[in-house]
């Protein structure tokens, strides 16, 4: 049965961008206020899941030729990597640090290494959620 989903597809084109933007916003809101890698990652992956639902898996994979298992692995590598880097600099495992810089447009900005850790978390969440959804849909 082929259902007519023109409306859904058209709306999705717009909505996916809103979701992705909101995901990034949540991600950057991180570590000092509600938000961060896990929630941001979940929102980001919901955008991918929506794409998979509206179009079929093959079409989306042509557009985004990424192995999501590797995305998850990259994420964990980032998260553990920041911990190990702290060891290389002689502080305790998983130590995070930050530095405040004056960027031209943003003004006073805090650049924290916890961002890299959170990036790892976000990538892991996206990779895992999408892999779960894909493997469930493959079974049926």
């Amino acid at each position, binding site marked *: 049965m082929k259902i007519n989903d023109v409306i859904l597809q058209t709306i999705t084109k717009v909505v996916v961008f809103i979701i992705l933007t909101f995901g990034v916003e949540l991600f950057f809101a991180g570590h000092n206020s509600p938000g961060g890698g896990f929630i941001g990652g979940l929102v980001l992956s919901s955008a991918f899941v929506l794409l998979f639902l509206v179009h079929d898996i093959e079409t989306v994979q042509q557009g985004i030729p990424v192995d999501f298992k*590797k995305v998850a*692995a990259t994420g964990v590598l980032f998260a553990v990597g920041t*911990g*190990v880097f702290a*060891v290389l600099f*002689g502080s*305790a*495992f998983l*130590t*995070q640090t930050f530095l405040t810089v004056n960027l031209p447009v943003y003004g006073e900005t805090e650049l924290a290494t916890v961002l890299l850790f959170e990036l790892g978390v976000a990538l892991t969440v996206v990779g895992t959620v999408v892999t779960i959804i894909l493997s469930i849909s493959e079974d049926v």
Partner: protein
Amino acid sequence: MNNIIAMPVVIPLLVSIILVFLRPFIKVQRVLSLIALVATAIVSIYILNSIQMNGVLRLDFGGWKPPYGILFVADSFSVLLVLTTAIVSSIILIYAFSSIGRRYENMFFYPFVLLLIAGVNGSFLTGDLFNLFVFFEVMLLASYVLITLGGKKVQLMESIKYVAINVLSSWFFLLGIAYLYGTVGTLNMAHLSARIAEVGQGPLLTIISIIFLIVFSLKSGLLLYFWLPGSYSAPPTAIAALFGALLTKVGIYALFRTFTLIFYHEPSITHTLIGVMAAITLVGGSIGAIAYQDIRQIVSYNVVITIGFILVGLAVSTSIGIQGSVFYLVHDIIIKASLFLLAGTMIYLTGKTSIEEMSGLIRNYPLLGWLFFLTMLALAGIPPLSGFLGKLYIGQGAVEAGSYILLALAFLSGILVLYSLLRIFMNTFWGETIISEEDEIPLRKGLLLPCVLLGMMTIALGVGAEGILVYVEDAAYTLMNPEVYIDAVLEKGK
């Protein structure tokens, strides 16, 4: 700063992630995973010696001081187990190289083994109750994958039971943690111990401690072992050996840690309960071990008996009894791996699982037969081998505490262990040979070498018991005197 004590978790974890990217290169995966485990073993030897000189070590993650941050604490007990885990799992890995097959290796077998080891090591090392929960989950998730990998019908059947029971017990674990946090307001184990010592272990805390007892009993298979024989006999040999050698030991470790460090004020309730549960486990396991014909079931029930036996040491809680338990725990990781590998090899060679259908194997594979004989003697606790000292000490502890029923049950179960294995030995190795010389499957060196290595380890541990006894005594001393652990975590430190 003791970053080194995070390494037994970080090394396997990092390597397992890297291996995901190296999926097509099986040879590289094998080499890297073996190197990771050997490196872990070397690091643990270093930590173990460092503890003897500097006392209990700790590492505050991210520099957050306890009780606010999460930390790793390394005492002799935990590092002794980490070391044994690393050595035994690398030997099992060598067995997996030539037995597990391409299909498994291609489906991320090595990354998941390393994740399992990272989870096991993390559970041994952590000093925070919630972190313990997290590492339990890391270990369990990896074990869910390993038990279902391959997707045979029996595996899927058993894994449903296994996953369901573990999810349930994890939920109880979380519940217990919530209750405990609500009652004393901390989750750092040392801080918990100090606070409970201050307010006294009232009825409420004792009930919470019983929730933890149920959780860890489910995980270790103390009394609540109904899921164990099935799930440990379903997966391929190398994975079953990893499970049989390591997974229940983590539950036992958690029981020892919580009931010597945190809830040690009401031994008349909690420790008596552990004693009763250990006694029933010994009886039930012994009945199981002599009731079945399937070699994998017999071996799995032997795991159950051991759990009861080790916990006799905790139930009596005398210094010598705890020493016996620690020693027996180390011995048992080695010998159970050996037993599972030998049983698996026998099934691989004959293609049968029932002991009635095998016979005369010693004519075809003499070395295998003698190795099984050696393992059997070690399990029964015959003097020059590694089982002896642990049994002696646990027995001595039971005598000191006057627990003669436990003593009798523990040693009766020892006889039944011997009987159940002797039954395997006589049925399968003696008698008319069933395999003619043309049909004989050659026993590859890759399968035999790990069994030989484990056999050598049990002899070395038995003969060289003096060498390891220093560490065992220190482990028991820290377990018997919680303030050593608490001081190391809360007071001094840079």
